[in-house]
């Protein structure tokens, strides 16, 4: 922890406030005082809570099962029973158009999609999938990248060379091409995958989660490894080595605590990135698979309805913008809180 303390000692004007204080508490206090970051956190929490409430909304408010096509169903608008899918008019009667927003939470608040399903309920369920995959893959990615970076940076030499070259190979692939290739291969395994006692079905959310986590490992690995290389040369690490500390102790007690702030800063930004990647893959139909939905699949479903039923695509689009914006602003706030010198550098 010596290095963390050393980092926050630098600004002379802050010194009287921080002497003897836990650096994590100081970071939390700085974050709490950052009103924009806190507003972003509140917004993100609200989105998460709303999405977690999806089953309650579907069951007790909208009274729908949003996973089942409802092409022959009906609903009520202004007291009148109307079909959810409405046949085109004119002489030709071409096409079937889902009903638009009724702005009535009990009856297709945001209208229906091309399968006659309630868009509002889908939106909340879709948010669950997008957030679970986004947060899950970012956490997995950061954990794997940190472990690999610690090994590479601490041991150096041939170990570092091999691990870094492996990361370079993964990095060399365009992100979406790599994800597309892996997903297409995995999706043909209809029986799913068996990992020891654990069975993962081909349509499980774990599949896109793991794929996205895997493709972004090098993106986190690089900065964390750089940080590890910098920390292992510090005097307090040399002092620990001189005092006979084992490699395990050195890594987990001396190096890891001094690079974890980098990972924490990266985490919300990675969540934003992985959510966007999940949305993109799902939009391309190789991410979340039916019956699950995500914001990406809803946008994809609404693609052919952009002129007549724009809310099918607009609603998840707005949710994505708000979520990613919140995470990016929060990420900036976390960085400023954990590394005030970086903020001072930026502000001159």
């Amino acid at each position, binding site marked *: 922890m010596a290095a963390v303390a050393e980092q926050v000692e630098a600004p002379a004007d802050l010194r009287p406030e921080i002497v003897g204080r836990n650096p994590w508490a100081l970071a939390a206090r700085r974050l709490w005082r950052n009103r924009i970051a806190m507003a972003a956190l509140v917004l993100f929490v609200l989105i998460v809570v709303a999405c977690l409430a999806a089953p309650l909304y579907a069951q007790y408010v909208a009274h729908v099962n949003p996973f089942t096509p409802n092409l022959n169903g009906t609903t009520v608008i202004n007291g009148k029973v109307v079909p959810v899918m409405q046949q085109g008019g004119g002489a*030709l009667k071409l096409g079937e158009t889902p009903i638009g927003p009724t702005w009535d939470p009990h009856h297709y608040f945001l209208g229906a999609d091309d399968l006659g399903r309630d868009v509002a309920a889908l939106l909340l369920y879709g948010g669950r999938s997008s957030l679970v995959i986004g947060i899950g893959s970012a956490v997995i990615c950061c954990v794997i990248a940190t472990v690999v970076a610690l090994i590479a940076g601490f041991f150096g030499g041939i170990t570092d060379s091999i691990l870094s070259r492996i990361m370079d190979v993964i990095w060399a692939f365009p992100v979406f091409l790599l994800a597309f290739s892996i997903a297409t291969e995995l999706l043909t395994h209809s029986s799913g995958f068996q990992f020891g006692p654990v069975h993962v079905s081909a349509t499980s959310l774990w599949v896109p989660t793991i794929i996205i986590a895997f493709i972004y490992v090098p993106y986190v690995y690089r900065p964390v490894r750089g940080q590890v290389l910098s920390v292992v040369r510090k005097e307090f690490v040399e002092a620990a080595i001189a005092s006979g500390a084992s490699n395990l102790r050195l890594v987990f007690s001396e190096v890891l605590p001094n690079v974890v702030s980098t990972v924490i800063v990266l985490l919300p930004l990675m969540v934003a990135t992985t959510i966007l990647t999940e949305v993109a893959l799902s939009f391309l139909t190789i991410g979340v698979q039916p019956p699950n939905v995500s914001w990406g699949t809803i946008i994809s479903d609404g693609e052919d309805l952009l002129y007549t039923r724009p809310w099918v695509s607009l609603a998840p689009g707005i949710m994505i913008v708000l979520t990613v914006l919140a995470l990016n602003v929060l990420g900036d706030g976390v960085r400023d809180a954990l590394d005030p010198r970086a903020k001072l550098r930026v502000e001159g």
Partner: protein
Amino acid sequence: MRLVRTVPAVVARRAARHPLRWSGAALVALALAVAGCGSNSSSSPSAAPSSTATPGGTFTILANSSFGVADPAQNYTLEEWQLLIDTHDGLTGFAKVGGVPGTKIVPDLATSIPLATNGGKTYVFHIRHGIKFSNGQVLTPSDFVTTFERQFSVPGPTSFYSDIVGASACSTKGCNLSKGVIANDSAYTLTINLTAPDPEIMDQLALPFAYAVPADTSLKLLGNNVPPGTGPYMWKSYNPNTEAVLVRNPYFKVWSADAQPAGYPNEIIEKYGLLVSDEVTEVMNGEANEVFDGDQIPSDQLTQLNSAKYVGQVHVNTLTADWYFALNTRTPPFNNADARQAINYAANRSAYVKIAGGPSLAVPACQILPPNFPSYVPYCPYTTGAQTVWTGPNVDKAKQLVKASGTAGMKVVVDGTNDQVGKALVEQMVSDLDSIGYKASAQLLAGTIQYPFVQNSTNSSKWNVGWSAWYQDYPAPSDFLNVLLGCNSIHPNSDASPNIAAYCDQSTQAQINQAESEEAANPSGAAKLWTQVDHEDTLAAPWVDLYNPKQIDFLSKDVHGYEWNPQWYILIDRLWLS
């Protein structure tokens, strides 16, 4: 033919041929079957070209993507075929007119349709004199030898002509058809010898694969170079990323107005790469003349096309095609006939029709043969009402059958394509399966992967219900019943095994063989047999037939003379511009 934009490397077609020569009677039967039904909807009467038709101008088609490799020996897409029929000719052709007469086989580069000799195995064609290719070369019977040899030396759907003597020894390494296709350039005759009688040979000779190319054309794949043809137009250029340009063939003179009339536009351009929504907008604005009829117009714009403003520009026609889910008969639960019938009873076909764009764009179907097709007699055992037309699902009956089959609760994988419509169809099928007690899940693959995936038996353990669609190659019941459900259409470990369900019933196959053998001598008897086979296959339920699709042609305001041919669909060269 499966409507695909990219060509499967090899699409195995017919593994077996059955005795009997082709007969005009079959066409009479077809005409009778189609008469009154009409291939066109009320919105698009198959009008004859106006007397004020004037040649000239450039006709521009917009297509989302190109048709891939252009070599006519390989290309198997409607998109290129609609252009090849204007640039090339075969020994025979489908009459180039709209409506029912368009299914009639007429002599094209041959002076007449010959009668078979040698027990139905030999045909002697007399070739027309004085016809020139677009490069000025005179057409001779020898040109056809190269044409047919290219069918085997160029990778493609060779089995259309695999009954020609010597064809079995041909491969992409070389081909010698000297005993199967004999040209006599002095007598101007071409003799075709078959190993077995083929009742459909004249239909097959009318397909673009058999269109004449000069004798000196390379036997190797020509890629995107289309060899010269004899039609009213010639290929000026083709770039799959930008456009295809057809201009008038300076050497063309009309020899048969039925087979190959002179076209109206001076130039035909097909442009590639636009979104379909943009194609529609351009045609609405008069900046182009046609949205390629294989492109699916988004639901949004269908609503726009309903406007009275576009009534004269939109033409809707019923296709002789099936959209269906094949049931994998190799593995449980659908190796059980009760289980197969159960999902047929449970399938909510009105929902599938809505996915296809509603009743104006699709008709619910239960049976294999499509309406307006030879030997078609309405039959639908899987409904609540009378057993001729589908009126609604019978879920109670379906549940009883599932219980009787002992397959309740089994996991079922529904495989389909990942485009909008494909995904919706799969999700509806998953819902239908769940409603009768299965645990269904979706498996969505890109269209180019999905079709070979479900055909190849090595993947048969990975899916239970597989989406597919089939559009007629030519109007013969065998094109559905034998190609898609015949025992000889199962090719293990091949990506080209069109019997996706792997359904094989030897007694039905015997009836198919008998129907083919009786087609010339006893056409009405053969027609009854085909009907029987259709109904037996429907009852055996190797598929869940969903619907017969309709097709939209959207043209600009200045286009006149629209004709819809059941074989080739829109006849581009018959359109004229004001």
